[in-house]
């Protein structure tokens, strides 16, 4: 047993929460695939408590208070019981006998470990940094809960009731364990946020953001995103947290991503843009999936706030983003409305799943603006008057409505969206463009003309 605990002693002596979390890892590291099994074999269910206690006491009696030794004995024993279930589940899987029970057993054992941790952190028996070790343990609990739910759903095929409420019947039991885990995370969050320890260096408040991130991930999975807002609110209401930039980058970036997405879903695009941009700027350069996730919201966001599309350079660097947005952005750039409609329809299932469909739909305005802008450009310049040079030339600013109508008909003539556009509708679209500030000018109905500003007819587009 002492040998098996050697890693723990080293980790503990280093005072590193991550190192202790490594010791309590439910997955064997790739360089030592037998680690869990070896640890498991050092004791058995009956002896584990006594074995760990004897080992820790004989080794740490002079360095640790009896309370703390007691706490670690319980934590490590609980970890061994978790490993016990994991090893048994693996054995069952190898024999092809993996049943519903195994994943639940693993989850339950791991939940015991998490609860044991919570107990000793809240009564102060464990050092303050143990809260980060708890974070890793809790993150594993989240994954085990997902697995347990998945396996339960498989074991109990959804039975549709004959009534109209079939969907309710089928979804309620499916996330049982994850919902339970969510309640555990709430407890940890409260434990961190409510720490009254005035000494900031040893405060559990350092755990606030990483636990909040766990809650976000869980609520998004449970499709109860609105609960995430409560987390954001309670953090915002807590005035005595350490300064945000002092937290580890992984906590900050993940938190900013979720705050950004939550704001995005509330259609607070200004806030979303600020948070997502911050997440993007600080994101770990080698985590490209996370970068893509940030951009998958930041791109629709920028379309609304700045009417900007991503550069070809950006899309080329992230092939997934290109396959997601490429066609749509090309169409917007070209002012190609039927292309836009086609790309939007084709991408709809994916866009809906990513909750960006409605926002992207609104960007049709930008495509339309770009189309109208082309009409303006193709009208060319006023003739030069005497004494004027090339530099003085100005674009023709009076453009017949019929020209815009013609362009609109051409742009929507393609397959799929060949609606008939009548002139009143064109006028309405033009009025909308002016109202929304995409165009500057007015419509002269008597002359059937749009009179555009001589300067900045299409704001922020260079003309």
């Amino acid at each position, binding site marked *: 047993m002492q040998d098996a605990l050697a890693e723990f002693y080293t980790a503990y002596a280093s005072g590193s929460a991550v190192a202790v979390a490594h010791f309590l890892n439910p997955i064997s590291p790739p360089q030592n695939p037998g680690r869990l099994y070896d640890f498991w074999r050092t004791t058995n269910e009956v002896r584990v408590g006594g074995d760990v206690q004897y080992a820790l006491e004989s080794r740490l009696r002079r360095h640790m208070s009896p309370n703390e030794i007691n706490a670690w004995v319980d934590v490590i024993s609980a970890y061994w019981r978790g490993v016990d279930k994991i090893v048994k589940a693996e054995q069952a899987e190898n024999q092809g006998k993996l049943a519903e029970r195994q994943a639940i057993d693993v989850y339950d054992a791991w939940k015991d470990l998490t609860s044991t941790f919570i107990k000793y952190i809240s009564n102060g028996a464990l050092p303050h940094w143990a809260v980060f070790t708890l974070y890793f343990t809790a993150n594993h609990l989240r994954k085990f809960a997902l697995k347990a739910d998945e396996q339960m759903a498989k074991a109990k095929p959804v039975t549709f009731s004959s009534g109209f409420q079939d969907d309710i019947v089928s979804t309620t039991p499916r996330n049982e364990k994850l919902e339970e885990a969510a309640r555990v995370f709430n407890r940890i969050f409260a434990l961190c946020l409510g720490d009254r320890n005035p000494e900031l260096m040893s405060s559990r408040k350092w755990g606030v953001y990483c636990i909040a991130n766990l809650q976000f991930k869980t609520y998004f999975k449970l499709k109860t995103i609105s609960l995430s807002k409560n987390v954001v609110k309670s953090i915002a209401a807590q005035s005595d947290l350490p300064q945000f930039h002092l937290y580890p980058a992984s906590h900050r970036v993940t938190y900013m991503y979720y705050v950004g997405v939550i704001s995005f879903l509330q259609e607070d695009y200004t806030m979303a843009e600020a948070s997502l941009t911050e997440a993007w700027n600080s994101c770990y350069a080698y985590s490209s999936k996370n970068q893509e996730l940030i951009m998958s919201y930041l791109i629709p966001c920028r379309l609304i706030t700045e009417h900007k599309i991503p550069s070809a350079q950006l899309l080329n660097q992230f092939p997934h983003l290109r396959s997601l947005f490429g066609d749509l952005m090309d169409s917007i750039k070209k002012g190609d409305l039927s292309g836009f409609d086609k790309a939007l329809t084709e991408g709809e299932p994916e866009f809906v799943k990513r*909750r960006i469909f409605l926002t992207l739909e609104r960007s049709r305005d930008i495509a339309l603006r770009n189309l109208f802008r082309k009409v303006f450009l193709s009208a060319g310049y006023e003739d030069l008057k005497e004494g004027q040079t090339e530099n003085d030339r100005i674009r023709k600013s009076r453009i017949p409505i019929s020209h815009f109508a013609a*362009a609109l008909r051409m742009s929507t003539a393609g397959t799929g969206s060949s609606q008939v556009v009548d002139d009143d509708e064109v006028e309405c679209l033009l009025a909308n463009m002016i109202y929304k500030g995409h165009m500057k000018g007015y419509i002269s109905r008597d002359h059937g003309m749009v009179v555009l500003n001589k300067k900045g007819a299409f704001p922020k587009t260079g003309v």
Partner: protein
Amino acid sequence: MSGATQAPTKSTDDKSKTVDAENSENKKAAVAPLEEDDEFEDFPVEDWTEEESQIPGGTTHLWEESWDDDDTSEDFAVQLREELKKLGNSK
């Protein structure tokens, strides 16, 4: 002779087909990870420096800034001008 001229056309056909197939496969493969949910991944490290958050050979321009207004030869622009010319003449 005719056989000789046919042969290359056939091979280019085949080639374009395989390219197409490859493209569609690429597309599928590229889309696959996006099929997953939008859960933010755990970072491999807890903390990092500002330098480590810069993409090597980074993207300086994230957003399209330029307007290719000079590109008046673009198909649509040409068509549009033709169309508008007709309208202008008929008035």
